[in-house]
């Protein structure tokens, strides 16, 4: 009974996101370790560590600059923050030349989240920028600061491409201008290193229904996994991915006996942008404790 309580409590607290669902799709064991057991495993995820970190930081700075611009800080105040780093400066220039975005009319919601319920659990989408067009349309922008441009099929296969428009269609009830029809939603991946080559997906009612079925199936699978786990022991091991290439970029490789040295990849395209803020979603800074 105690285990049952734990499982129910976990499900009721956890907020599913595209990245946690992607983890489950990639490797059930990784999902179990990262989210269900919240098990830290301090091995190197991928090499070279410092370069990868620098690249991620540059991506964060780009996101922050765009956010600042979208909340109305003057360009003249922002420009110096992009200078000094050639990559960032180039991305920033590309952003400033992104006329399709700047000319798009409508209310802008930068760094905006929506949560909806599906299969009795919560599902969150964190948008880099959501533009609510006056005519009732909505455009989701997602900045991908990759060095390489993955093919459209790669984006299409990512759960983010399903989760983001789906959550907007379901949870946008209280948005300014009212709920959005699935057919009025577009999602655009924009890569500042490849500014002329965005990847766009136009949403539809059909696609909404397919996504709902696919996401529900994934969530039911997770529920089933949890049920089986709880009827045996909470630590029973979930299946390891059959694709061992993934393990090269996964910090649990030693725990799973799937190798010792981390794979080499600067981009996160190999990816798992693990979302550590999924639990409870509080995003505060540390506070002075007792």
């Amino acid at each position: 009974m105690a285990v049952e309580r734990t499982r129910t409590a976990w499900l009721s607290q956890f907020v599913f996101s595209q990245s946690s669902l992607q983890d489950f799709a990639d490797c059930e064991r990784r999902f179990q370790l990262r989210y269900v057991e919240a098990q830290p495993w301090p091995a190197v995820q991928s090499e070279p560590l410092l370069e990868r970190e620098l690249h991620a930081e540059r991506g964060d700075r780009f996101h922050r600059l765009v956010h600042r611009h979208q909340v109305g800080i003057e360009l003249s105040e922002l420009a110096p923050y992009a200078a000094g780093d050639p990559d960032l400066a180039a991305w920033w220039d590309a952003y400033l030349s992104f006329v399709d975005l700047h000319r798009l009319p409508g209310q802008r919601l930068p760094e905006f989240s929506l949560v909806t319920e599906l299969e009795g659990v919560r599902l969150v989408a964190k948008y880099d920028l959501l533009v609510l067009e006056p005519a009732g349309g909505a455009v989701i922008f997602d900045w991908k600061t990759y060095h390489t441009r993955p093919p459209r099929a790669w984006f299409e296969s990512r759960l983010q491409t399903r989760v983001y428009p789906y959550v907007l269609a379901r949870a946008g009830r209280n948005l300014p201008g009212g709920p959005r029809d699935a057919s009025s939603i577009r999602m655009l991946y924009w890569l500042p290193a490849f500014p002329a080559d965005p990847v766009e997906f136009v949403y539809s009612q059909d696609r909404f229904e397919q996504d709902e079925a696919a996401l529900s199936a994934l969530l039911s699978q997770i529920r089933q996994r949890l049920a089986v786990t709880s009827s045996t022991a909470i630590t029973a091991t979930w299946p390891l991915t059959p694709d061992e290439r993934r393990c090269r970029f996964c910090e649990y490789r030693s725990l799973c006996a799937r190798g010792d040295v981390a794979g080499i990849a600067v981009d996160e395209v190999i990816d798992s942008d693990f979302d550590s803020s999924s639990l409870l979603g509080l995003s505060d800074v540390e506070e002075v404790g007792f």
Partner: protein
Amino acid sequence: MNRSRFIEGPAGSGKTTAAIEHVHALLRDGVPAEQILILVPARSLGTPFQRAQATPDWPPGAPLDVVTLGGLARRGIELFWPLIARRAGFRDPLREPRFLTLETAQYYMNRLVAEQIRSGVYDSISVRRSQIIRQTLDNLAKAAVNGFTLEEVEARLITAWGDRHSSRPPVYRASVDLARRFRALCQENNLLDFSYQIDLYARHLLREPQYRAWFAGQYRHLVADNLEENVPVVADFIRWAWDALDTALLVYDRDAGYRVFLGADPSGMAELADLCQEVEHREPAGVSETPLNALSSTLAALLDGARVDESEPSIEPGLALSVQTHRFFPQMVDGVVDEIAALVEAGTPPGEIAVLAPLLGDSLRFELIDRLEERGIRAVSHRPSRALRDEPAARAMLTLMTLAYPDWGIHPPVLDVADALQQVIEPLDPIRAWLLAQIVYRPGSGSLGSFDVIKPGMQERISYRSGEQYERLRSWLLAFSEDAPTSPPDHFLSRLFGEVLSQPGFGFHADLEAGRVIAELVESARKFRQVLHPDGADDWREPTREYYTLVQEGLLAAQYLSSWQMEQQDAVFLAPAYTFLMRNRVVDHQFWLDVGSSVWWERLEQPLTHPYVLARSYPADQIWTDDLEFYARRDALRRLVLGLVRRCRERVHLAVCNLGESGYEQRGPLLQIIQRLLQPQASEGDV
């Protein structure tokens, strides 16, 4: 403002439930969730709101923005930094700020304090380096949350000291001087510790018209819960935001205020009621109808100085209490464990039991956990922190670190090497680990010799399998010396863990607890690198050594299970009493340990700072007298005891130990109050 309401009442009177219902009603009326700001004093106190939005009837939309003032300040500074950096006087305003944690702030201050310690200015008080650093950071935080300058902090501390012996004022001055130099260092390097974030937010960002416009466009509704635990600058913030809001709901617990030590200002926050159109006073449901309610009202009256016959309980309050008295400490622990086992046997879920003490030392914590586990009862413990170097897995990593960096000249004793080998080489028992360490380790040079050259008989005794693993580890450490100049400390620790120690056959392979501890070590090393060496290093060996020294000095704290993980477990909860209160959790049974101890009545010894004097409501020119100390302690005890009783559903179990650790009979103020409650005819003490 369309509607503003102030709800006040004690714990259990449904205030937070009313606040959640208020938020729910706003959402039902079509208010977008992103327009609602929920302000709490600590993240743990935001949990009820997070739980509420997980219920099935909660409307879809944006997640609730449940935030502390610190969180709001950090977010605001991060986003609007270009607007304030220049005006706030940072040397390099075009560079992004770096946010310091408590831990990384300590690293920096550690660099400044050495010179002061050498000067002997702290010699008149018995205080460790880490305490000087923490209490100085505390002075900075108190200044920020009260809106004081550092000059005011210094003046208040010295004035309150009065004409007691003269060694203390120089100590206060030294701490404030350290704070000033730390602040200057932060300004020079765009570093923002907690206090600087609050200061920048209050003094600069809130005065920035663009921030005000953004805030007014973003938030239309404010809910501030547990106001009594919040700091004066939060009241300033609420007044600042007030006119731009459509609704506000302020919630206040009149008997709480447990965070006075962190700068909470219960009386100042109560004044916010004057802003509100409606003020609602609440009482607990069914007041005085249960023994526990009778117990809390009787205790309140006694702690206010009333006589028992004046407190008029409608029901016998002793019915909610059980008392067990023992002569010695171990007997008391036995008695508590027996009683818990009986409760669990009778069907009480372990998660409905809390064992509380004013301080929870390691030995008591481990003893209780072990004894409960012997009876098949799970227990989890929460202490705020403990030094990371005290965790065995972290110790082993640090020992191996010194072996990987022989040029530091730090050569650990054989015993440490044996301990590390025993932990990381799976088949080694302590005796073989000791044998191996004695043979292969050369303490003079800090180097490890090869297993292959050991005599075959001894190899056999140690076992070839262990030898193989030892050789693998040794080769890795030797090979690492090539990479050492280019590897920061976190990289070294991660690689050693991932490539060797957690591989199959090694000691940490499936050791999840070691994984947790070492993850914290790696995280602390990563923060150290990012904050102290943001531009990298030509050679990482020296910074790695600096990191090692900081860990050894105990400046790194290990965190325990997250609150979420703790609360999911159906386990007896062991915690210091204040920690339990700040979790705002209600249980069926509470055990109060060692109620005869005067520690229940004492406050933390902090010779460099003062929680009561560094408060906006305290007169700047007043001396802190023994009378004031007495009343402050009595008030703190009252809040503590009432807070605990109100978070109990069935029974409070008191454990008394007649003889304290020093062998003297214990009769602390809490015990005196309890005795007066149970035996009204007994002579009345002086509390």
